[in-house]
């Protein structure tokens, strides 16, 4: 069972989470997503300084059998990446909402945050996906 989606985060339909702190967001993939992907064996991080565009590819996560894009939850610029994932991608499986964060981005348009879901809507969204 996936962990409860924290109330203080916002979520995308592609299963990324964001934590907003002023102009900076920290982002990663949700626990629901890591559970679907199973054990990650490789994470391709974006370069610091990369310009991001909401819904465009930001990073790549790979399990033994799958290669999945991780999308930028907001437009802006990458200011920090979680380099510990390079050697230990399994941190995402262990702590998707915490130590398994992927990147920090300076937001260029804070209105984009309105397009994201809160924890309750995201939980419902996952339940719906599960039925398919």
């Amino acid at each position, binding site marked *: 069972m996936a962990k409860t989606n924290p109330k203080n985060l916002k979520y995308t339909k592609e299963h990324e989470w964001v934590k907003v702190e002023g102009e900076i967001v920290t982002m990663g993939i949700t626990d629901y997503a890591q559970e679907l992907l*199973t*054990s990650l064996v*490789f994470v*391709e991080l974006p370069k610091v300084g990369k310009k991001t565009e909401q819904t465009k590819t930001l990073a790549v996560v*790979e399990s*033994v*059998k799958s*290669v999945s894009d991780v999308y930028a939850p907001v437009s802006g610029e990458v200011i920090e990446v979680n380099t510990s994932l*390079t050697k230990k991608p399994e941190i995402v499986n262990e702590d998707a909402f915490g130590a398994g964060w992927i990147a920090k981005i300076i937001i260029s348009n804070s209105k984009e945050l309105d397009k994201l879901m809160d924890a309750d809507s995201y939980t419902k969204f996952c339940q719906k996906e599960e039925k398919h």
Partner: protein
Amino acid sequence: MLKKTPLASAHKKLGAQMVNFGGWLMPVSYTNVIDEHLVTRRKAGLFDICHMGEIKITGTKSQDLVQQLVTRNINGMHIGKVYLSVICNEKGGIIDDLTIYKMAEDEYMLVTNAGTKDKDFKQVLKVKKQMGLSDSAVKVTDISRQMAKLDLQGPNSQLILKKICSADLDSLKFYSFIKTKILNIKAVVSRSGYTGELGYEIYFNSKEAVKVWNKLLSVGNNLGLKPIGLGARDTLRLECGMNLYGHEISEEFYPLQSRYGWVVSFDKEFEGKKALEKIKVKGWEKQLVGIEMVDRGIARNCYQIFKNGQRVGWVTSGTYSPTFKKAIGMAYVDKKYDKMGTKLKIKIRDNLVEAKIVKLPFYKRS
């Protein structure tokens, strides 16, 4: 509508993630590919392989037909032996890789890949017709649907099988089989498999599939037996450098370039021989090799390979190896670059990532 094996509901009950595999609804994984892979290497794994094809060939001319069909020389093959071989089209391209079971003096069973079974069957009939063999001389029957196939693989497989099979498994040699009974059900048990471990391939009436599957899982439980999906089956075979149809082999490739030269016997007649004799003299452009990533990244099927800025090949299979904890794969490269240790670049998304050619297999049971 996807085809289902008799075990489809059993897999769902076990919580398997089911996928479309060549038109079949199959379990890709029950828990997670890495765990399933390692359980098979360390304890034992049970695989539903009912989707694969079985073709029965009987009659006084059955040996002549099989000899003409397959590339390997079956003269002198004993009853109870299993041979790995390929069958080729007239151009020498691989129609399939398969195993041949000599069941009796005038009876053979061919075990084919699932997706190729129908074209294999057509090829058998084509060769039969070319040879002018009558139905009374040789009979060809597709018995795939009546036949269940379970693979029991791993160091504990023999101990587990002994619990429900009284046959003398200790003296059963690699690539040999016995006709025996499991739970009072007639079965063919061969010591073979697709994982590189001690293991068995078990054939019996598909009506009994659920019964045998459940019984094996329950008697094997305290020896660490787990059901294993196709995900781990793929990583297990790749560590052993074994080919998978549609990846390393297809009608586009000759057995000589795909490390199947050893199953081609030029000392007898067979379909595709003339073409392969020419290829043997002329040589071939691309050679199948093993690769290992030097830089970070995982090579995957169809990724392109470069040397000095030129495209020189592509990856046929690539994964993260659970045993070695590194990225490995197989690839076709220009023959002039097929030497061990040759450094190559693999295009992974937008980056050229360094890899090198290594010896196959990656894994060999100690």
